[in-house]
């Protein structure tokens, strides 16, 4: 499978070409180069995945991991070495498909969405860079290579969030995203170093005897790695960057901040899963509790946001938390007894990438039509944008967990895994799932139903109360609707993929069966959530809604401000860290460290000033000194 190296090389070449020569290309050429590269990458990824799974299981009944490429890049000692290469395993093959599919859809979609934007070529260059880094991350052969690409996706995310660099909010958001994830990555790096020091390898699967001696520090190392993953995957309390990251172009939000990069943390935990389950099950429990809390928190906040991209951002946080919970509730490596969550998590990652990508691209299509992110500028759009409406509805049904759409199947597996872990956890996650249905349909009704903002403005204009004719919403061009339709089609059928046949916690085949009790309960809860949203928002904001808003004014305001988490972070950083730690360190640096160096410099300056007059520029003075020297030396030679 040597051709897999092309999956990495092609986007890199495309990045270099567009990055270096983009300025002299017309927009069309740059877009075509980027998109065609992605077509090739997608074809190769599918081919690689099909070839890998078609090769069949080995004697022990698992899909053997293959390494078409691996070379020693940086030897650090006798045994410790940083390798670079390509590793194909069931989950990396699955990730190749997810990333290349969503990325290709986004490339095609952006041809329409970004048309005529300044920096179009730069946009495609960054998209290529991101695709390269993300693919490199999932095929990494060892934890250190993963870390290298982990930082690369971080930087491409930073570049793309700050794409509209003339907008101060975008700059602030890109910096915030970079700093927060970088802060978390520090723990990741420390975890990797501890891991490498005690096990003597950066491989994902070290020898058992090495692990026996390093067993005691493994939980610490794995917990630190999870903190890095929590930063990238926006787990509470490191989630603060993701909602702001919506300042970037919407297709970028779909690709990076919904479908691929933000699930890197989940992928990391899944990759290290054998170590987690074998040596640090208590860390998995921490992951489960952090994930469960994040899921609830993000779901509550998502219920009251007014910016449609923010709603989707919080729903992303909540759904990623579902995947984390699913990994966290695993208690053994056998999918039949407590290891179901692993498969469920990967399944949800797969389906979520498709329908959340679809939701964001749909949101982009709406924003493209009404030129605003705010719900108050929408309403009644179903007449004007039929394709976007239907595809968005499919994605909403999928995320709400209504059969036969894909989200139902994966979420159901997660809930079963949660009930197997403990009943309270299962009930808790079921409630969050119901809230998911509620806030997604609230969003759906606010955008597509209710009073049309356009028609209201038009009426005002016709009565002469408004001086400019409102902009009529229109369906997006085919370049944007075709990716929507493709993703919607995938969302409809992805649930029927026998996912357990390919991926399970111990690698052996596992047949998914729907637990009737859990499935019925979750369908009823989802239907209840949808029904509530229908009552409250279908005809605009009804009287009941107004009343609820009145009664719950304070909690709604708090939730709208995301429970003041940003302010808490600002307080911690500005008031405690800056004033208590950074300011004294800065004082020490400026006065003690710089001061001692200044003293040296001042001494040299003074000494220089003292002997400077001797260099007068007067030749005769020099020659007198010369003569004096000669006489002195002669006298010394003569008398001694």
């Amino acid at each position, binding site marked *: 499978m040597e051709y897999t190296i092309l999956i990495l090389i092609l986007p890199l070449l495309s990045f270099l070409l567009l990055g270096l020569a983009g300025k002299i290309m017309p927009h069309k050429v740059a877009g075509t180069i980027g998109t065609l590269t992605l077509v090739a990458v997608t074809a190769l990824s599918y081919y690689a995945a099909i070839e890998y799974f078609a090769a069949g299981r080995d004697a022990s009944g698992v899909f053997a991991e293959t390494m078409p490429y691996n070379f020693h890049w940086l030897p650090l000692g006798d045994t410790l070495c940083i390798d670079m290469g390509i590793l194909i395993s069931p989950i990396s093959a699955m990730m190749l498909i997810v990333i290349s599919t969503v990325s290709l859809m986004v490339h095609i979609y952006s041809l329409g969405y970004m048309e005529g934007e300044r920096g179009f070529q730069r946009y495609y260059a960054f998209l290529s860079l991101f695709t390269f880094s993300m693919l490199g991350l999932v095929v990494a052969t060892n934890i250190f290579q993963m870390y290298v690409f982990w930082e690369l996706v971080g930087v491409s995310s930073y570049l793309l969030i700050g794409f509209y660099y003339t907008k101060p909010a975008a700059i602030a958001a890109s910096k915030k995203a970079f700093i927060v994830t970088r802060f978390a990555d520090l723990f990741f790096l420390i975890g990797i170093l501890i891991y490498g020091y005690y096990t003597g390898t950066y491989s994902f699967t070290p020898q058992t005897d090495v692990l026996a001696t390093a067993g005691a520090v493994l939980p610490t190392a794995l917990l630190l790695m999870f903190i890095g993953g929590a930063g990238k995957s926006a787990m509470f309390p490191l989630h603060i960057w993701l909602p702001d990251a919506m300042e970037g172009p919407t297709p970028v939000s779909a690709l990076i901040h919904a479908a691929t990069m933000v699930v890197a943390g989940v992928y990391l935990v899944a990759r290290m899963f054998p170590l987690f389950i074998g040596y640090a099950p208590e860390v998995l429990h921490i992951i489960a509790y952090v994930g469960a809390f994040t899921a609830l928190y993000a779901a509550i906040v998502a219920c009251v946001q007014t910016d449609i991209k923010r709603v989707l951002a919080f729903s992303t946080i909540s759904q990623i938390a579902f995947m984390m919970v699913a990994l966290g509730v695993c208690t053994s490596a056998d999918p039949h007894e407590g290891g179901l969550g692993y498969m469920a998590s990967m399944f949800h990652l797969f389906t979520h990438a498709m329908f959340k990508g679809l939701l964001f691209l749909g949101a982009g299509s709406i924003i493209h039509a009404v030129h605003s992110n705010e719900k108050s500028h929408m309403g009644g759009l179903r007449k004007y944008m039929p394709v976007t409406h239907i595809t968005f509805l499919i994605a909403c049904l999928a995320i709400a967990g209504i059969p036969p759409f894909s989200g139902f199947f994966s979420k159901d597996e997660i809930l079963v895994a949660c009930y197997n872990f403990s009943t309270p956890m299962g009930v808790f996650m079921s409630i969050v799932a119901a809230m998911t249905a509620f806030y997604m349909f609230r969003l759906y009704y606010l955008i597509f139903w209710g009073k049309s903002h356009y028609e209201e403005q038009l009426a005002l204009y016709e009565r002469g109360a408004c001086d400019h004719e409102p902009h009529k919403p229109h369906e997006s061009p085919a370049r944007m609707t075709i990716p929507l339709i493709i993703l919607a089609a995938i969302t409809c059928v992805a649930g029927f993929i026998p996912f357990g046949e390919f991926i399970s916690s111990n690698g052996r085949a596992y047949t998914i069966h729907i637990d009737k009790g859990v499935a019925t309960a979750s369908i009823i809860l989802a239907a209840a959530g949808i029904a509530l949203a229908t009552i409250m928002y279908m005809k605009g904001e009804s009287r009941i809604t107004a009343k609820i808003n009145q009664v719950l004014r304070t909690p709604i305001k708090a939730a709208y401000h995301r429970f003041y988490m940003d302010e808490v972070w600002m307080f911690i950083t500005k008031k405690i860290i800056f004033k208590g730690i950074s300011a004294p360190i800065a004082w020490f640096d400026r006065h003690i460290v710089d001061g001692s160096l200044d003293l040296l410099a001042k001494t040299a300056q003074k000494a220089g000033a003292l002997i400077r007059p001797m*260099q*007068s*520029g*007067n*030749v*005769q003075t020099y*020659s007198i000194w010369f*003569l004096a020297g000669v006489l002195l030396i002669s006298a010394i030679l003569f008398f001694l």
Partner: protein
Amino acid sequence: MNIPAEYLLILSAVLFFIGVFGFFTRRNLVSLLISTEMMLNAVDINFAVFNAYCHPGHLEGYIFSLFGIGVAAAETAVAIAIIINVYRNFHSIHIKRLKNLKY
């Protein structure tokens, strides 16, 4: 050839110190050049005298005198060229005007 060597050495020493004195006190670049030449000539005389009185029959001293004269001629040519350029730039050959060259 019965001039005592002391006379010749005294002549050379006097010539040399006249040169040194001139070099320290004159302010005109051409005068400085002349002073330098006088010092060089004093050295040449010394070479010739010591060769003639201490090692008669050898030629090294004479040859060095000839060398000295040749070098002095070349040096004068260079120095005159420099002085002419100084004059073109500063419109003067007063040595105090050359202070700026220290930078």
